[in-house]
């Protein structure tokens, strides 16, 4: 009861600020820029969303498919690579800095190259961009979590004559969990951006990316924003799923406790 009341009072400020922001946005535009909105007021975006619902839903499904498959592949590969690399101390020390460096590369620029590889209208090239973009943050974070373990915990396990696999299961993996979920949250929004931008270069023409470009080209900004809104919703849903999974997987973790307080 008090927990519920507490959660309500905690969510009050963001909700209030959000509503105030929306009202400000709407009223400001109504007063200053009555026609030809480049940034339309929220009411018109909602109207466009309703009007073009079937088109937007199709785009959301296609883009969502690219995001989900690319994301899943990137996360699985990232975790596997991290597990593999941490088996070998020297490999870990040399590969992680390289991965960090590669992460500095604007991977989205690879989109046209992937188009050449996998075909211009195939979604594979877009999935590949998402996968590569997701791989590095996951790999780097999980590796960090698997290796940055308190030495005393490892020594304790050694004193029990635990095998390396047992140490991994009992110490390293639990330690890596917060890092893993953190990286999931990071890539949840990255993958949306990656997919939509990759769609500029190629892939299905009825996905969200092309829809935004075409609507903007025709100065139908409300339609473009409606498609952007759909993309944002995918990101928010993914983020929420990551946060939910985090809470279910490790109810003991401090940041979860803090959030639940």
């Amino acid at each position: 009861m008090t927990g519920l009341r507490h959660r309500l009072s905690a969510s009050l400020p963001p909700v209030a600020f959000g509503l105030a922001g929306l009202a400000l946005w709407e009223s400001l535009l109504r007063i200053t820029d009555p026609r030809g909105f480049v940034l339309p007021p929220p009411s018109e975006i909602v109207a466009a969303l309703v009007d073009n619902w079937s088109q937007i839903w199709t785009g959301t499904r296609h883009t969502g498919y690219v995001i989900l498959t690319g994301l899943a592949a990137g996360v699985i590969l990232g975790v596997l690579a991290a597990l593999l690399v941490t088996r070998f101390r020297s490999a870990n020390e040399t590969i992680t800095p390289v991965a960090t460096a590669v992460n500095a590369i604007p991977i989205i620029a690879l989109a046209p190259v992937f188009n050449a590889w996998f075909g211009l209208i195939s979604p594979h090239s877009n999935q590949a961009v998402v996968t590569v973009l997701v791989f590095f943050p996951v790999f780097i974070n999980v590796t960090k979590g698997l290796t940055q373990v308190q030495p005393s915990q490892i020594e304790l396990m050694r004193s029990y004559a635990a095998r390396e696999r047992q140490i991994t299961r009992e110490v390293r993996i639990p330690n890596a969990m917060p890092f893993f979920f953190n990286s999931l949250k990071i890539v949840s929004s990255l993958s949306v951006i990656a997919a939509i931008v990759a769609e500029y270069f190629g892939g299905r023409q009825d996905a969200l990316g092309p829809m935004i470009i075409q609507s903007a080209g025709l100065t139908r900004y409300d339609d473009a924003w409606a498609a952007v809104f759909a993309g944002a919703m995918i990101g928010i849903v993914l983020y929420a799923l990551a946060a939910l999974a985090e809470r279910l997987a490790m109810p003991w973790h401090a940041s979860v406790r803090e959030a639940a307080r």
Partner: protein
Amino acid sequence: MSRLEEQLAEIAATDDPIIRDQLIVLAVKRQERRQRLRNSARRTLVFVLFVIGLGLLYMGYKAMGQSTGDRWPIVGGELPVKTNDLIMPPLGDILTSFGRPLRAGGQTLASLIWSSALFTLREAATGFVAGVVIGLAIAVLLLRSRLLERGLLPWVIASQTIPLVAIAPIVVIWANKNLGFLPWEWQKWQSVSLIATYLTFFPVAVSGLRGLKSPEPEALELMDSYASTWGQTLFRLRFPASLPYLFPALKLAATASVVGAIVGEISAGVRGGLGRLILDFAGKYTTGPERLYASVIGAAVLGLFVVGVIGQAERFVLGRRGQEAV
């Protein structure tokens, strides 16, 4: 032995246990510094080997596909990427294309990529600086007011799920239309910077806030005991304490600003930068695939460069404190 160490050795002859501890600490620090230098040299070497390995992998895959007719050896089945010279131009062609002029007697591809990279760097750097300023301002604002933090922070986080890079064309039109009141004439490339700013401010704001909150309660009490003002505490304690948190965010932001600039150019139709170059060469892919590869390599180098610059700054600033980069 340095002069200081000689002095210390002298003092150590007297029985001051604290000075003796200090000698040990200094020796350990010196050892660590040497280790760090060795590590960074090795890291560079490994990265070079990695790049060479990537090239060998490319050539190996291509050679394999061409000898088997684009099928996996032994197990059979089609390769995911075909290996003809159009899809995978020879590595040698990609490398030599840098030196070749685009038109007979014209500028070389390398010099075009160089000038495009500078153009993109200007967009990215402008956006980066603006993003850092805005991000820090938000961090200070959220630090100042608990209510703002609770009300605004979720929206700052939510803002990143809006794929604003995706709406670069709209941003450009909006900026051209609405930012005329600024004291300078608004340029199209500055709209691209605006997108870089949007991607930059977020990591700076979030990590900045964490960093500003990082001082121990004792350090804050110390400042209070000096009757220090809020501003004095901000500039003398909170801000310097936030730097180890800020630099990793700045590195993220630097990458993001380059991504924002490249993507912004592509969709905003701004000419002169790397993003536009990549788009052009993607369009003319069939007549010169190696040029697309070369320009993508240029973008990769630009990304490495900006992060390298921030990394050097980090090492300089934190190294002077005897701290290590986290």
